[in-house]
């Protein structure tokens, strides 16, 4: 927890199954209550009226094992394991279509993000889900220097499924990369020369404090 220069490790440390066990113990079968207490915007879950507009509005709707409508129902039905280990929430593209169309004004996008984050915290999120991996890399990337480094992020992304696959992906992406370089929208120098924020230490401090506050808040319940 103290070593914030390696946020991913820090998260792993914190998201040991002990955290999960504690939550199971605390809430027993009241998964809805657990979600209400611990998931960002989770108090909205009970307000879903099951119309299914979210499911029909999602651009990747077909790729979700359980669209938001079902996720909400599963939470009410106490299907904790199924929800938190689902890869559904990780299909969210953050297009916000569900939010603007929801007749009950549920912040569905945020709830999906919140559920994904909560599953991640408890170590239940599917380990090899590509968006989960990318999202974790992204956070790591931006919190290191305060700004996103598209070059290092891209390279880590290609190699996220191992070295051989990484080479394959990199080769496939090579023409794209080259044309980005040609048009000065990317630079290989980013590997070494990306400077980020001057106040990167500030950002480290800031995030550490924010996490402390957040952890304290969750313990309250």
């Amino acid at each position, binding site marked *: 927890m103290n070593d914030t220069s390696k946020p991913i490790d820090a998260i792993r440390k914190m998201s040991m199954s002990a955290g999960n066990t504690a939550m199971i113990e605390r809430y027993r079968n009241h998964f*809805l209550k657990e979600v209400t207490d611990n998931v960002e915007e989770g108090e909205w879950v*009970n*307000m879903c*009226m*099951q119309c299914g507009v979210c499911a029909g509005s999602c651009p990747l709707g077909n790729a979700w094992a359980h669209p938001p*409508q*079902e996720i909400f*129902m599963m939470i009410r039905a106490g299907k904790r394991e199924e929800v938190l280990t689902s890869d559904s929430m990780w299909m969210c593209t953050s297009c916000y279509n569900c939010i603007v169309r929801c007749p*009950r004004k549920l912040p569905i996008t945020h709830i999906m993000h919140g559920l994904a984050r909560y599953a991640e915290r408890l170590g239940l999120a599917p380990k090899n889900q590509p968006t989960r991996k990318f999202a974790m890399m992204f956070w790591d990337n931006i919190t290191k220097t305060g700004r996103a480094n598209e070059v290092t992020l891209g390279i880590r992304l290609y190699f996220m499924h191992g070295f051989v696959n990484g080479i394959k992906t990199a080769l496939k992406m090579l023409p794209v990369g080259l044309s980005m370089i040609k048009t000065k929208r990317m630079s290989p120098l980013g590997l070494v020369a990306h400077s980020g924020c001057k106040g990167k230490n500030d950002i480290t401090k800031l995030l550490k404090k924010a996490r402390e506050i957040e952890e304290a808040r969750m313990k309250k319940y």
Partner: protein
Amino acid sequence: MADEKKIGAYLCKGCGLGDRLDISALKVVAEREGKAAIVREHDFLCDASGVAMIQADIDTQGVNRVAIAACSRRAKTEAFGFANVAVSRANLREGVIWVRPDTDENRETTQEMATDYVRMACVEAKFMNPPDANKAATYNRQLLVVGGGVSGLTSAIEAARAGYNVTIVEKGAELGGIAAQLYRQVPEHSPYSDPQDTGVAELINAVSNHKNITVHTRSSIAETDGAPGRFVVQIAAESGTSETKTFGAILQATGFTAHDISHLPVYGYKTSPDIITQFELEQLTKAAGGDIIKRPSDGKQVASVAFVQCAGQRSEQEGHLSYCSGHCCSTSIKQAMYFKNANPAIDTNIIYTDLRTPGAGGEDFYRSGQHKGVTFTKGQVTSVKAEGGGVSVKFKDLILNEDTEEKVDLVVLANGMVPNSGLNIDDPTSAEKPKSASILNLTYRQGRDLPQLKYGFNDSHFICFPYETRRTGIYAAGPVRRPMDIAQTKEDATGATLKAIQAIENAALGRAAHPRSGDLSFPSFKKEGCTQCKRCTVECPFGAIDEDAQRFPVFNESRCRRCGTCMGACPVRVISFENYSVDSVGQQIKNIDIPEEFDEKPRILMLACENDAYPALDMAAMNRQEYSAFVRVIPVRCLGSVNLIWITDALNSGFDGVMMMGCKKGDNYQCHFVKGSELAHMRMSKVDDTLKTLSLETERVVTHEIAITDIHRLPQLINEMASTILRIGMSPLKF
């Protein structure tokens, strides 16, 4: 009224009529063919000087029949509403110039249309008499309210406050009905977040203390005779005493009975004291004074409740109500709040297939339930059974598509409502059925209770006139009319009471009630000639006509809605109105000029219902929808008033086609007189024989159902008829 008929014909030149039509030629038609004694033209007939000109002729020249050749009869009704004379209208604007192209080649046929309409208006005026109010009219400011629940109480207090005297007849020992036994009601006011007091106690108090309201409890109606303004009602008390009172109008507010679902094993009702109905939960909660009720079986504190919606409702299965009772979803939310407000830790799950919370605050109330932590599960319940000291509810989760089970302490069933609507007068076996008894005991020829429309409710016309029943002066209000909750009931009773007051006032002036409100004409009948065939008494949609000992019809004017269905039914044509008769229409048909076959100008007669088809034609004209110049339109009060003689006369005189335009018929009818359109369609099905006798093609007579919105379809239908005539050729019967 002077015996001599003097026709004044007035031709308007405004709105482009003067530019499009040869008005001087039309004047000659009115004079020579229409036999008008006075014919005048005016630049703007509906303006003050035009109206004054006509009034002067009435006052000083003895004009008592006024034919106005201007716009549609639906326009400028106030300007042209002259008192004590008969007024006819030639529709030259909406009926002629607005539906015809303004081109040289069309000028002749357009002028021919106008010529016919002017002639028709003059002859119609000649065959009309200014109607005189019913001489037998009586003013009776007493309202009878049958039923002392929320609807009856509301009606009584509203009528009393409006200055009318009210008598309430209640079968039970106490006022207040079912609502008096509820713990709380669904909220009627913003923010719609919590159950509220029913207010029934205050309502009973207000009614009991009002000097203009008399209450008969433990009483029922032994007989109802008469008509609006003069109902004679025998009120019988349980004690055996009886009292006869007269009333101007009647309001039936007999409410509902909870649907008995003990015969449906799936819900397990009556198999365990822990499986109860919504109404039983109210009684238990009320008895507990609002504390959380204990489980009926063993007195355990209830920790979990499941509410099963649509228990025995909204299904075509045997023993189920096929309709939605409307209040149950909100009621279950309210009842779940009884538990949640007392202890938020109690699990409350509402299992529904479709959640419906009607009314302005319904959605807010639903949300409030969700805020309080009531869980809503979309599922189809497959069994409810007492099991292991609790109740097991098995259901199919319709979102997750899986069978599942919930164990709870208590199950509440939303079992729905059945109207207390008396006998089904359309079902001859109704009186023998168990538990059925007449409520009103009407002496009417057509049956002892109000007719039922659907599912046994005493409704009449759910689309156009929700408060009307098919018995003039008798209004149904509250859940006997359609399923509703307390808030809707109060609104419904208030509206129905206003209608009852209107009926009282209209009856006093001898005027028709809705929809020809204010009409002073009523059917007259020539006994000589009547064959006692009973068609009029059977077909009258409003039960207005009884029969005397010799089986001659007895007309009860104040029950009559003036639709003319009896006139259309009468095979010997002895029924007519002063201003609307077999002649007033028949003579118009005879006065339409039929060009010779070789002129290639066919003539199509259209009889258009004045309620929907005629306004739709006017609107088509306002939108400048063009249609064939060969059609001649005569408005009728209802297609039910169309007498077959008009059709046979038209065909015999050489018309090439006849179009009958009525309202939508059938189960979801839009006929303003309920059965008129239906009857007309039935009668016209027999026209085929007539056509065959005359060796005419059956396509020459068509009947259509028209909605007021059919402003594009109507011109289309006319043009289609014109092309049909073109295809099958002209009628061979032209002289």
